[in-house]
């Protein structure tokens, strides 16, 4: 009988502990916002996506209480950004803050986002890539076995010691009928262009014959109606922190919170993008040997005045 009493006592005791143990798998955090965006030298308006960190899996709302400022640390110039509520194609809503401003090479910018009345600041700092100076060498032209034309030109980008994010290349033609210029972009994949990284500069090469062949196939009218007036190259360079772990940008790798993040009290990444261009002309003899027509500036002075007066490639480094 005593055993029965013990069992009853245990039952009563257990009943007292039968309360629910609450659990909240979402931990309290000081992190308030996730920021994604990049300050772009090529843009006259900058954009940054601001996402409020939510404690539940709800869709982002149209209301976002946040003040967004950017400050150029060198000049201490502060700009307040504006919010735009944008509905994406999939119907979801996002807050993209913007400011009509340009960013400059080699300058450091600090982004601050805070909730009104809160002392917590979600911030990120980014250094826009330093200015790159191009150096275009004179083209090398020769024939193999007297028939096969070889024409290449090397371009050196000083102060760049890593592979650029993107390289764009174009040929500029003037067409009388349209009375205007046509820039024809050709792909420039550094890996296939004998590109190399050196101490103090990055070097790539243009295959003028291959480009000519490509233009002949895809834009034959440029050889009939167009006059070659110049070549150009634009470099897109990411800031030095904008490097994915392992060298590859993938959703799974970067999706882990904190990976490739420079945001304090938050998540995400605010990068900066440098854009640098070089424009030049190839020598007339090279152009004609490749089959391009050249504009006689003396015959058409009015047009010549409109033609970009680019330098011919030079071996000299433009500036020390």
């Amino acid at each position, binding site marked *: 009988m005593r*055993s029965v009493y013990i*069992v009853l006592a245990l039952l009563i005791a257990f009943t007292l502990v039968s309360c629910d143990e609450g*659990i909240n798998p*979402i931990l309290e955090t000081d992190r308030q916002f996730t920021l994604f965006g990049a300050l772009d030298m090529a843009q006259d308006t900058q954009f940054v*996506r601001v996402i409020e960190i939510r404690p539940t*899996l709800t869709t982002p709302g149209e209301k976002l209480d946040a003040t967004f400022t950017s400050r150029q640390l060198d000049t201490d110039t502060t700009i307040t950004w504006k919010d735009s509520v944008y509905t994406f194609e999939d119907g979801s809503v996002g807050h993209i803050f913007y400011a009509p401003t340009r960013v400059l090479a080699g300058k450091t910018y600090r982004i601050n986002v805070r909730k009104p009345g809160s002392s917590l600041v979600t911030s990120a700092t980014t250094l826009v890539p330093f200015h790159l100076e191009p150096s275009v060498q004179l083209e090398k032209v020769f024939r193999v076995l007297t028939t096969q034309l070889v024409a290449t030109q090397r371009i050196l980008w000083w102060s760049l010691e890593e592979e650029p994010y993107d390289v764009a290349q174009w040929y500029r033609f003037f067409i009388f009928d349209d009375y205007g210029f046509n820039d024809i972009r050709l792909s420039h994949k550094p890996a296939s262009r004998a590109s190399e990284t050196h101490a103090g500069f990055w070097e790539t090469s243009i295959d003028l014959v291959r480009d000519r062949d490509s233009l002949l196939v895809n834009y034959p009218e440029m050889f009939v109606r167009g006059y070659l007036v110049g070549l150009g190259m634009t470099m897109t360079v990411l800031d030095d922190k904008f490097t994915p772990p392992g060298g590859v940008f993938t959703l799974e790798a*970067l999706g882990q919170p904190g990976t490739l993040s420079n945001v304090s009290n938050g998540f995400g990444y605010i*990068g900066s993008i440098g854009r640098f261009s070089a424009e030049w002309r190839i020598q007339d003899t090279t152009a004609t040997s490749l089959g391009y027509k050249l504009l006689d500036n003396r015959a058409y002075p009015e047009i010549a005045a409109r033609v970009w007066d680019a330098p011919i490639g030079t071996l000299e480094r433009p500036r020390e």
Partner: protein
Amino acid sequence: MMRRICLLAVILLCAAETLAQNAVLRGYVTDDDDGQPLQGVNVVLTNDDDALLGNASNRDGLFAISGIPPGLYYLRATYIGYQTRFDTLTLATDEIVPYNFALSTGGEGVELDELMVETERAGAGAAGIIAGLQSVRPADIQLIPAPDLSGDLASYLVTLPGVVASGDQGGQLFIRGGEPTQNQVLMDGILIYQPFHLIGFYSAIPSAILNVSDVYAGGFGAKYGGRMSSVIDISTRNGNKRRFSGEFSAAPFISAGILEGPLIPDKVSILLSGRFDVIDQGASRIIDTQLPYSFNDQFFKVHAITSENTQASVTGLRSYDRGILGALTQAEADSVKNQVLWKNRAIGGRFILLPTRIPVQAEILTSYSSIENSFGPELEPTRYSKAQEISAAANVTHFTGFTDIAWGMYFKFNTLDAELSGIFQDISDETEFVSEAGGYIQTEVPVMEGDGVNFHVEPGLRLSSFPSKGRNFIEPRVRAILSYGIHRLSGAAGIYHQEFVGLADRRDAGDVFTAWTSSPTGEVPRAIHFLGGYQIRPWNWLTVAVEAFYKDLDNLSVAEWTSFPRFTVAIQPAEGTVRGGDARLEVDAGPFYGFINYGYAKVEYVAFQTEIEYWFGPGGYAYAPPHDRRHQVNALGSFTFGGFTMNGRWQYGSGLPFSEALGFDEFVLMDGPKDLFNEPGETRVLYTYPYGGRLPDYHRLDVSAEYKFEFGENTALTVLGSATNAYDRINLFYIDLFTLERLDQLPFIPAVGLKLEF
């Protein structure tokens, strides 16, 4: 490899012939009431010179005493609860004497002072663990309070320390750190892929059809292979060979029926069992909560004594489970797109032969097993997996007089189908055919016997070959038992490989879909087990046991870590360790039976996903997988007085790991200049370290009381009253990280059940 195995078989058979110089006494022991084989009957021969020879019957009721010098002997066969059998025999040289007999109930159960045959059968009872082995009898299972009267192995297994269930829903059992698909469940030698129903109280095998179940939590011998964590070797009983009988029961979760009887009296019997859920009509109404589960199982066994030396049986099992786990709303419960379904099919034949000229038992097994697992609508599932195995095996045991030598050969043909809608990124949708052949040999060597000391070592070696994959494995195993008076020391070690693995996304407790595949990383999962234990029985009513274990796991495949809230089992390689220990105390004192056990286990995996070094540094990330339950306590008490039986069980488990988060945001892949207006981003969970948090502890009390009304000799009505989760503890089963809604395990469920036996 097959050639070597066949050569070994020939050598062993020849050796057996030469060993048969003295007499051999062998036979089957059965229950006189229904013809069931009796396991653990001590059969002892003595003579006027005080010679003493003996053996215990195995699960087929077979005993064999070899190496008997010719002469006059006095036989005594004892079994607790049965009348002792005495006989006088004259045995001649080189004679193999068949000696089948039946024992009648009602005896005092004489215990032999002079000889207790030491076998692993002593591993019965809650504290009866020997080197990882625990035998579970139907009577043990009946002690566990349950909401019905049919009893079930699953209810008992979760009382064992080191056995972790995913909850009372899900049907997933983790044994000493192993994944559910690393457990091998054999029923009469037939593989059962998914032996548990979605409701955790039930397995596909009701206790009423059980003879005995050997549960090896690790360190299993060379006879078993193909799984790397544990073995549950279930032996079903035969149908009654004397008369037709049966039982029907009804309770809030299931209704069950069993029918058995002789097709040819004393020769051929049949046993039929069927169970069907009645959740909608019963349990759901009692707790007024939708339980979107449906399951049933059917079983049959035909057993025939075909001659004095041969027996044959055919066994079949079918089970069906369908349900929606983690349904938090009525809409989710009604939605078939989240439905998980599995179907087991198993059928096999077993033939036992005792050759008249040589002292061996030969067993031939053939079987077919399959599992179909799908997720989504039954007719058009979004994920589907099917595994099939056709197996043929021969097992031979030699009774040499000095020791028993067991060896066997097997051949298996496996088919694996997967249609995974591209979700399992590392596995293509295809049908895979894999053949496997192998063999084993193991023996029990009596290193020391006498003066109260009994030291047996059981070395073994298993060979596995996969000709279609060009893989071969050699797996040494050893088990050892040292008995000295009331003390018993035991230990085991072995190497285990598992070519076929079941992949599941363990990050989500609500998803139990499992895809069976051949080792997906190209490396075959491997485990090394070490375990050792001590048991003491200071008095007949008290047994205390402790056991420690360590498992080293390698070449595991676990789901890749991702922060995006979507199902994936893109897999990554991992390795792990499991270490822990159990302590058990068992009391069997007259009307009271009880036990309390405590289990500690620490499971740690180290995963090697490519991106891990970017996230957590080099060397992989170590984590506790979601079945790492560190502490467990199980206590059971059972009183029997008058016609009443009262049972109570309390169980406690410390919290399971889960991944905490800081919140949610959208992730925009910043891989260079981006037009933010074209990038809505992908919703992301801001996880902290994987599985860094712990869910609340789990504890529950179940109680039951039953009374048996007997009407005549063979008819009885048993009435059960039970309370599951008696103090209505709110135990968390599943928390939806995305909505923060929680699904709890079953609440307080009062139940009444009836069972009619005839």
